[in-house]
């Protein structure tokens, strides 16, 4: 039994409520003398405009139209004028002149300023916005051959930064952030789909991109604080499509299909050349060459095998089909849509890839002042991915192309290939025969809305939504035969040994989560005396999550995964009682906004969140924000400007947001568990206690953001420019606790970090309609953010494979850190007079070896000479979208890029013959130092283990590994043709369009051998390892499709 909520838990909300009440009471309801005027408001298509405001000019009196578009208003004098307005339409001013019946035709106002913008728990027009909100129209997403929404959003909005770890369709890891890095924890924004906050940003990828009507991005505190404790990283509001009233059923079908081509950016040198280079590297450091001239000749005569990394990849089909039916009657609207998306993996092997099935239905109906709606979405995702390690690509990439290298013979026996040196490995065996992970996940979401208009302008709205997520994975690991390496050309198939997962395990894992969200909202919206626009919102929300998983793992199964007497159940098997959780969030929130004469705006928002993730006495947080706006162009002294240019609005906001993503469900309390094999008695294992110390002082991370912005329009609103500058300080960032050793335990987290993040963004929208035959539009965005660690404690240096990053106060979070190089030694004389690393014997260096900068000038290169080397997070990110239409032809393209970013790449793509398991050089490495090539990009060749290699390549985090990561990429280019209507009507078809498109066809970058778009960093600039540049390659898509409307 739940206790009803019977009081406001804190003062600010009570104030909001009071304010709302006062506003209601001040509404003048007295009737006056005069005539009664009535009529119908319709739009250009003759359909009634519902909820249009009909006001008596110069007064606060007025009404709104009903569902038939009708209105009736009394006490009208002959001299009065009626002002009829509605969002999305140009306001009409109609003199009464004694008429009793006045029908009004509203023309759609497509100007930028009147576009509908979805904000937290409500909608408004762009004109009214005084905070920082970017909008992405659903059109940008439709017809793009992308696998998911996140991919489509890349470059779509300023400072919406989406990075990918790789392009593997079955294992892609994208990270998304708004305005860059502002916490050392998770920087992922909150995603809200149709008013329902989502547990993680990846959920947007479960949507069918064609179902999306719009995406609005709340960037500053003014717009996002209404989402309180989860809003500090910004909020992405996704709204799905609905039907339209009084519309005959419209059936839309679209199909697109194409080929994904893996674009491998590096190429091994020919094998004979590789042998020569290898010999050169050895003799450069006084070691004996390994390849004889006969061998080199043999390589040259017999030619090349296909590099394994290319053998592992193939072109893959991608296809997408959508069918939707929309329409509506006078009181009811509906939408039914279904889609199928299929993306095959580019890996060879047993049909890896993704399938996604979406189904959505949305219905609304009205009954007097009551409106009821339901929106149900279903997603099924099937994924099959190979069981290959994270180093698969690196392993496959490091082999030379000796003519005798091969993967597998006709009997299915795999070959290890390590002629002369390197680590053996049947590289493609796991991919082709090692087994797979197979997911089949189903997600069902449902939302029920009830709207009731209590009095004019005051609506009560209840939203009930739920989600059920069922995820299932089946993992099957297999064995295969690998020939025994015997040092000659071929490994020996007659002595093939069983390899792979010799215990032949398989496991099932099932996870189920349910989510429930209920919201009650009071929404008030009125204009008084024409000039005083007031809107207010008061809401209550409760969210609950439940989760559990079960898993069973068995080993020693046969090849049909059936058990036998040898089969055992693995310890990793678990019951739902071992893996489950519950969490809840209860919130009150509100917004009051007031504008005077559409010139001066003030808006206050606040949210009060109570979360089950914190100790009860401190589980609540209050997150307020204020926004101010001034439409300067409407001032009388700006008349000239308004006429010449257009609109000009200045705005500012300040507020407090929270972040609780990094807080575990029970981090505030000490929890106990048991681990096996803690100790033994008589040689037999016993289990031991484990405890995780909680921190009951845990609270939200808090961000305070100042945002100053400017919106201006030019050329009759054809060109709209928006500029924002922000400064954000995040405090109470969760970091590992600092406790004394004598405390005797570690505490996982405490609120102690502080970070600053500042930046700006510029957006240009241009839309020119010359006539119905020709129009073109573009949008351009450019943005920057810079972060700085303000409070952290002892600097944390984190080296992965020689690439070093540092968290240090005063530097950006996880900056590249290490030694600065100063080119290459040109003479022995220079070596003698230069500082060298302490682990290097200078007498064994030679010209062409790396020279380092002795930063502290103490005569040696040691740890004290390390310094800031650059930053791996994109700066000056931009996107450019261009669309052109002429008669039936349409053409569009999209550019996206980064103007400043450092990319530190390690491994054999940089260092030739890396660690001796890199056994080939690549064509891009040939510009190495030699006496006849002293201005080379890379140092002279040297063999692993030599002093030169230690000097040149083994100084952790030296800038020899740093590449300029700036780039510009043509993400998408599309050409379409819409057939003339006269022609298509013959086929009962309203519209028919065909198109051809291409993804990622062109990239402009300084170093072509790595994809500049991929990153090793997660959303908080943390990383699992250093970037080796050898990822699942960039995919280029070539395809086409058609859109039909019936």
């Amino acid at each position, binding site marked *: 039994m*739940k206790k*009803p*909520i019977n009081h406001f838990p804190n003062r600010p909300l009570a104030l909001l409520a009071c304010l709302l009440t006062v506003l209601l009471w001040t509404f003048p309801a007295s009737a006056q003398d005069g005539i009664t005027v009535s009529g119908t408001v319709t739009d250009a298509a003759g359909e009634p405009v519902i909820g249009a405001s009909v006001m008596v000019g110069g007064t606060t009196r007025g009404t709104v139209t009903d569902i038939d578009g009708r209105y009736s208003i009394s006490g009208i004098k002959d001299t009065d004028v009626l002002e009829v307005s509605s969002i999305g339409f140009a306001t009409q001013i109609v003199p009464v002149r004694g008429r009793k019946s006045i029908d009004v035709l509203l023309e759609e106002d497509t100007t930028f300023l009147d576009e509908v913008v979805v904000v937290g728990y409500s909608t408004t027009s762009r004109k009214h916005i005084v905070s920082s909100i970017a909008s992405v129209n659903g059109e940008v997403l439709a017809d793009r051959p992308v696998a998911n929404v996140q991919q489509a959003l890349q470059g779509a909005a300023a400072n919406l930064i989406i990075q990918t770890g790789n392009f593997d369709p079955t294992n892609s890891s994208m990270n998304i952030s708004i305005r860059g890095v502002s916490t050392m924890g998770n920087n992922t924004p909150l995603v809200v789909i149709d008013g329902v906050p989502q547990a993680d940003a990846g959920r947007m990828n479960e949507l069918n991109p064609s179902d999306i009507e719009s995406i609005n991005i709340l960037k500053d505190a003014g717009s996002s604080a209404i989402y309180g404790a989860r809003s500090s990283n910004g909020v992405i509001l996704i709204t799905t499509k609905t039907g339209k009233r009084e519309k005959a059923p419209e059936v839309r079908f679209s199909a697109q299909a194409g080929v994904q081509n893996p674009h491998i950016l590096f190429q091994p040198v020919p094998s004979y050349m590789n042998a020569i280079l290898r010999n050169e590297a050895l003799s450069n450091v006084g070691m004996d060459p390994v390849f004889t001239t006969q061998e080199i000749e043999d390589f040259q005569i017999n030619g090349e095998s296909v590099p394994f990394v290319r053998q592992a990849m193939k072109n893959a089909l991608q296809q997408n089909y959508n069918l939707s039916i929309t329409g509506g009657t006078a009181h009811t609207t509906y939408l039914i849509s279904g889609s199928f998306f299929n993306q095959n993996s580019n890996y060879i092997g047993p049909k890896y890839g993704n399938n996604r099935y979406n189904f959505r239905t949305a219905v609304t109906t009205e009954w007097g002042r009551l409106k009821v709606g339901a929106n149900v979405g279903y997603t099924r995702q099937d994924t099959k991915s190979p069981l290959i390690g994270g180093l698969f690509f690196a392993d496959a990439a490091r082999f030379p192309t000796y003519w005798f290298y091969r993967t597998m013979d006709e009997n299915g026996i795999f070959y290890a290939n390590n002629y002369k040196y390197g680590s053996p490995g049947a590289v493609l065996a796991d991919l082709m025969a090692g087994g797979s992970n197979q997911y089949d996940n189903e997600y069902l979401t449902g939302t029920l809305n*009830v709207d*009731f208009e209590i009095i004019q302008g005051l609506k*009560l*709205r*209840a*939203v*009930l939504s739920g989600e059920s997520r069922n995820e299932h994975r089946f993992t099957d690991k297999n064995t295969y035969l690998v020939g025994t390496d015997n040092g000659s050309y071929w490994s020996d198939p007659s002595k093939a040994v069983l390899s792979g997962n010799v215990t032949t395990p398989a496991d099932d894992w099932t996870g189920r989560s349910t989510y*429930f969200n*209920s*919201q*009650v909202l009071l929404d008030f919206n009125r204009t008084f005396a024409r000039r005083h626009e007031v809107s207010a919102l008061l809401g209550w929300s*409760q*969210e*609950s*999550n*439940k989760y559990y998983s079960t898993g069973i793992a068995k080993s020693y199964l046969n090849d049909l995964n059936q058990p036998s007497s040898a089969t055992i159940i693995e310890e990793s098997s678990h019951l739902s*009682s071992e*893996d489950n*959780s*519950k*969490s*809840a969030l*209860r919130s009150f929130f509100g917004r009051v906004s007031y504008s005077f004469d559409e010139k001066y705006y003030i808006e206050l928002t606040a949210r009060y969140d*109570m979360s*089950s993730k914190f100790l*009860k006495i401190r*589980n609540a947080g209050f997150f307020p924000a204020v926004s101010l706006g001034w439409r300067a162009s409407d001032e009388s002294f700006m008349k000239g400007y308004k006429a010449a240019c257009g609109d000009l609005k200045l705005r500012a906001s300040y507020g407090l947001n929270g972040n609780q993503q990094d807080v575990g*469900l*029970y981090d505030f*309390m000490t*929890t*106990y568990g*048991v681990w*096996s*094999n*803690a*100790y*033994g*008695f*008589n*040689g*037999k*294992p*016993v*289990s*031991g*206690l*484990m*405890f995780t110390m909680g921190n009951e002082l845990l609270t939200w991370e808090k961000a305070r953001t100042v945002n100053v912005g400017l919106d201006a329009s030019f050329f009759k609103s054809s060109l709209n420019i928006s500029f924002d500058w922000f400064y954000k300080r995040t405090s109470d960032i969760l970091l590992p606790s600092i*406790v*004394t*050793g*004598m*405390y*005797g*335990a570690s*505490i996982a987290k405490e609120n102690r970090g502080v970070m600053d993040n500042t930046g700006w963004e510029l957006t240009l929208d241009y839309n020119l309609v010359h006539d119905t035959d020709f129009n073109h539009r573009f949008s351009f965005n450019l943005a920057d953010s810079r972060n700085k660690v303000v409070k952290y404690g002892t600097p944390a240096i984190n080296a992965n494979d020689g690439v070093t990053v540092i968290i240090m106060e005063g530097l950006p979070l996880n900056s590249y850190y290490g030694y600065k190089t100063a080119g290459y030694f040109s003479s022995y004389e220079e070596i003698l007079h230069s500082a060298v690393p302490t682990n290097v014997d200078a007498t064994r260096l030679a010209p062409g070896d790396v020279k380092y900068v002795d930063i502290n000038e103490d005569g040696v290169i040691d740890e004290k000479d390390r310094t800031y080397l650059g930053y791996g997070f994109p700066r000056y990110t931009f996107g450019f979208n261009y669309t052109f239409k002429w008669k039936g032809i349409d053409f569009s393209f999209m550019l996206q890029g980064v103007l400043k970013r450092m990319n530190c790449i390690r491994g054999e793509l940089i260092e030739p013959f890396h660690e001796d398991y890199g056994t080939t050089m690549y064509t891009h490495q040939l510009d190495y130092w030699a006496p006849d090539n002293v201005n080379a990009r890379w140092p002279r060749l040297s063999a692993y283990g030599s002093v030169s290699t230690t000097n040149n390549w083994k100084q952790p985090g030296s800038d020899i590994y740093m590449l300029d990561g700036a780039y510009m990429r043509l993400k998408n280019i599309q050409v379409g043709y819409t057939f003339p209507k006269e022609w298509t009507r013959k086929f009962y078809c309203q519209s028919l369009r065909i198109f051809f498109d291409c993804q990622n066809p062109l990239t402009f970058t300084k170093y072509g051998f790595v994809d500049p778009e991929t990153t090793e960093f997660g959303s908080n600039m943390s990383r699992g390892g250093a970037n080796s540049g050898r990822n699942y390659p960039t995919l280029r898509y070539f395809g086409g499709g058609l859109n039909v409307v019936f």
Partner: protein
Amino acid sequence: MKKIVFFLALLPAFASCVGLEQYPTNSYTDETYWNYEDNVDAALYLAYNQCWSADLYWVNNHLSDDVYGSRHSKDNLEVATGQASAQNSRFSSEWNGCYQELRTIHTALDNLDRMKVSNQKKERYEAEWRLMRAFTYLRLITWFGDVPFFTSNPTNAQTLVATRKSAAEIRSFILDELEFAADRLPKNTALPAAERGRYTCGTAVALKARTYLLNNDWAGCIRECERLIGSKDYGTYALAADYDELFKTGHYGPESIMTVEFAYEVGVEKIVRGWSMARMLPQSIGANGVMEFSPTQELVNSFRKTNGSVAGDTDYTGRDKRFYTTIAYNGCSVEIPDAINAKVIGTQGVGKGRYTCWTDPKQAEVERQSDPALMDDYNGSQDRTATGYYTLKNFDPLTTGPGRNSYKSLMEIRYADVLLMYAESLYEQNGFLTEDQWNATVKPLRQRAGFDADYCALPASGVREAIRLERRCELALEGRRPFDLRRWALMETPSLAETGDYYLVSTATGAPFMDDGTNIVCANSYAIKYWFPIPQSERDQNNNLTQNPGW
């Protein structure tokens, strides 16, 4: 109508299903953990896990002249050679490890009332926790002197202002606690087989003897030793017949008083808790990686010929039997029986067999003609012995698996140690040993080591040196040497405790395998300070912590 709508609108308020106060249901909380007897057991076993480790059992030897560590035992090497600062993590890991154990023990002791177990069980468990707490405080005061002292879990705020309590006061607490445990724990003879390795009343008494000994308190040590030697009130202890077997299969015999325990799971045939000799053994019997543990020539020289004479450096024949158990030398051979995972042993992966270890490079060169895989010889590289010797003590092929991982128990206190503590305390207290006292203590050890009868008898002079030599040989590589050297240095220079000065200043050498016939001079020039410093990180946070002399 309105009412219905209103009801509909408010429906969500009642539809929520998860409250704002949540507790984990997939793990335990303070409230639930102690309700289960298994969990109480687990709390005890964690205390055992953290009480003492194979790691420290071995690593402490680095702080003596018995072994040479490689650069991969950097922290200990810095301590042993006087290069360490208070930031050296050897100090903080010792400190943190002790206080972690104290937190575990206090987590249990603070919750005694909550435990749903029988009073009898609770009493025994409490005695074990308090014994382990005493052992841990003994570690702390031995290395650090005065230390912050808690008898229940502190908050972090308390630790930020905690001050050091005098070692003398803590020592008397330790002795009281051990007496409490001695009164309540079962005797070794009363332990069922399944409980082998649990601490007994004999453990408590032996630890008391050690506590007195470490303080050079002879009377106290004699008193405690006599509770074990002359009486069966605290268990029945005796020397094992065969020294070699003692370090293979004899760890649960009557000589064992306190052990560190490991585990093997039958069924999956897997060592689930083990320790490794991968960086101690000769490579010919499966060691790999960087060699971190090479016995010194000085240790080798302390093992005499069976007639009592000092052997030549490379004269490895006819020595004290204990030598062959302890050290792998040039030409020694190791029998690998058919053992678990035996096939991973040996360079050929053939397992079962007899392997000879050639550490002299010149000889290895010759032997390699017939077996090219031989690779135990000293060559100056980090994966070979640094001294010409490897470690064999505690290597039991029958309990050793892949990676030289073993689940064999390691004896931290054994009866031979009690006999030697007793002999030394009697001698130091009285200035002599009687024939009877000698015959009851040192003589049986020498007899077991296979010495001629003459050498087993009480010597006419040099009894102190005889006892000390016996401690070195008998307890070699068992972690006692660093503490003995400290004690003896303090006896000679009582001001050491006040000055914290260096007490071990010498050089280590290896076997005479150099081309010119000289010994391999290892890089260790020992210079070990008497105290460990209070870790710098600790003092950075707590201004009340004073630093030890010498730092």
